[in-house]
């Protein structure tokens, strides 16, 4: 549902069905709504059968990369005698994205159930749910739910009476965007600075504590019980055309729309319908100018590109961007694009872990150059300088934070050059005073 708004008829409500329903937060309420049936079923199934079912559903990672979930699970070694781990990425901090927060706040048991199924499927001795430090309310709700699940025998040494052990531990982050990157998260979980690791080895070979690990996003894991309950074919059928993108996706829409919120769409829904029908279009009768469709790390789309875009993994790529986490930042025609791009660059400069030179220096320098342009001190040569820096920041570092900073700069200069030009030619009042970035 379009939480915090009522459900829109164009939505396909699966994960968000109980958003806003406080009873669904409790164990009893969850069981009354069909909760934990999928887990009981899973614990009686062969592990490989669960993985095959998830593969057949077409479920892809909802954290941003869109990697097929069943395939990821199948990379875990089988019966190697080592402990395995499942890590649930609940470090939601990609600007524009606020869906995992609602899943945890309203349907904590859905996440616990998905985690328990995933942990069993990959032979994990424990699942860690890494929740960002600022999510105090989701933390409290999840803590209560995990306690309840242990008290009810859903988790523990004899999970659901199956004789199998399933354990979940909540782990609290402490403020670092980069810990949403999976290998940075593993370092953080181990009690280290959240610096991303060089891959390979991939987590399936050497993840948490050097042992085989799978990292999945909250929304991905929350979808798993539905797939087991209703079947892979049902999930696969939730698709408006392109069979590579299946299921529902929670789109967090924010910015200048009338009704910002989380909208659950069938993959393949036109972005135009999402913006104009579900979210009620632009505020104050303004016109759409730009959309960042998948969290701040993806290329900016112009209004025309967004209006022609099909909302699924391939559709957004075709439009020139990425579906990413589904965090849509919508901007109307009052938006100063140069200012917004500077603000995003500042975000990445703040969040760089600083271990790679291109990122540490590049995010800082691009922020300062953009700031100088906004202060009315820009030069014609700044385009080339920004694009050159962006090139050096792309594909050259351990993780993609640096690439993410370059993305809005490059697409911004490409698509909104006249706005940069207005500052550089001093045709526009400076938006910033020149000073330290």
């Amino acid at each position, binding site marked *: 549902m379009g939480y915090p708004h009522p459900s829109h008829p164009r939505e396909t409500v699966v994960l968000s069905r109980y958003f806003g329903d406080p009873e669904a937060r409790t164990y009893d309420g969850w069981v009354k709504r069909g909760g934990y049936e999928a887990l009981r079923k899973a614990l009686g199934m062969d592990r490989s059968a669960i993985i095959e079912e998830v593969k057949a559903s077409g479920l892809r990672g909802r954290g941003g990369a869109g990697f097929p979930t069943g395939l990821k699970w199948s990379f875990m070694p089988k019966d190697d005698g080592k402990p395995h781990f499942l890590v649930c990425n609940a470090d939601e901090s*990609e600007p524009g994205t606020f869906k995992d927060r609602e899943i945890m706040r309203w349907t904590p048991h859905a996440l616990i159930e998905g985690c328990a199924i995933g942990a069993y499927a990959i032979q994990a001795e424990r699942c860690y749910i890494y929740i960002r430090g600022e999510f105090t*309310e989701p933390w409290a709700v999840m803590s209560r739910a995990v306690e309840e699940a242990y008290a009810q025998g859903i988790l523990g040494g004899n999970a659901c009476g199956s004789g199998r052990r399933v354990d979940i531990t909540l782990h609290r982050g*402490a403020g670092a965007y980069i810990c949403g990157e999976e290998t940075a998260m593993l370092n953080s979980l181990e009690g280290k600075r959240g610096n991303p690791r060089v891959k390979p080895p991939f987590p399936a070979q050497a993840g948490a504590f050097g042992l085989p690990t799978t990292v999945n996003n909250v929304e991905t894991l929350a979808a798993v019980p539905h797939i087991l309950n209703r079947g892979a074919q049902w999930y696969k059928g939730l698709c408006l055309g392109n069979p590579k993108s299946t299921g529902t996706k929670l789109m*967090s829409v924010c*910015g200048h729309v009338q009704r910002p919120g989380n909208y659950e769409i069938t993959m393949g829904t036109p972005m135009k319908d999402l913006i104009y029908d579900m979210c009620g279009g632009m505020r104050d009768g303004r016109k759409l100018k730009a959309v960042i469709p998948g969290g701040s790390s993806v290329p900016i789309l112009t209004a025309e590109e967004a209006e022609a875009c099909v909302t699924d993994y391939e559709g957004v790529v075709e439009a020139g961007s990425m579906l990413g986490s589904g965090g849509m930042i919508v901007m109307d025609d009052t938006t100063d694009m140069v200012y917004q791009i500077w603000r995003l660059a500042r975000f990445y400069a703040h969040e760089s872990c600083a271990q790679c030179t291109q990122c540490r220096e590049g995010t800082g320098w691009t922020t300062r150059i953009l700031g100088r342009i906004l202060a009315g001190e820009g030069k014609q040569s700044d385009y080339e300088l920004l694009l050159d820096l962006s090139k050096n920041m792309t594909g050259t570092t351990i993780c993609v934070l640096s690439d993410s900073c370059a993305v809005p700069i490059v697409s911004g200069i490409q698509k909104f050059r006249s706005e940069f030009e207005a500052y550089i030619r001093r045709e526009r009042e400076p938006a910033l005073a020149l000073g330290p970035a």
Partner: protein
Amino acid sequence: MSVTVHGEEAYEPVFTGETLAALERKYAEYPTKQALLLPALWMVQEKRGWISEKAIGEVAQVLGLTPALVKGVVTFYTMYHTHPVGKYFIQVCTTSPCGLCGAEETLKALLLHTGCGELGATSPDGRFTVIEVECLGACGFATPVMVNDEFIESVAPETVPALLERYR
């Protein structure tokens, strides 16, 4: 140095009695003791409000780590305070999505009405510290504000005075 500045000559350990027991109960959930570092630092901050050099030394000793490693971790994460802050620590999200919806005005109102005046400063009455924070993950509810552990959605400049009344 920092010991006398903050008047902590007589350092009282955090990890004794029930706090130590609570930490030790968590050892079974992790394969290494170091994995307890973030949870232990949270326990220190809950008890003391911030993490001092001496507390870093204590955590290092309890978990069998070096103080340098612990300090490196403390300073990596933005939520750990390495100096005392106001009784109410206010974090305002001003990242792009909230910025589009007026977060900077909300921030100005908070700086004004708390008496902090500038970012990171503590108000003369010691009650408030206001900082900007990057993306709080509640972009549909601009502007989200955290007051200590309390998460408040949709704060606007005109609702700031009433919000602050709750902490006076």
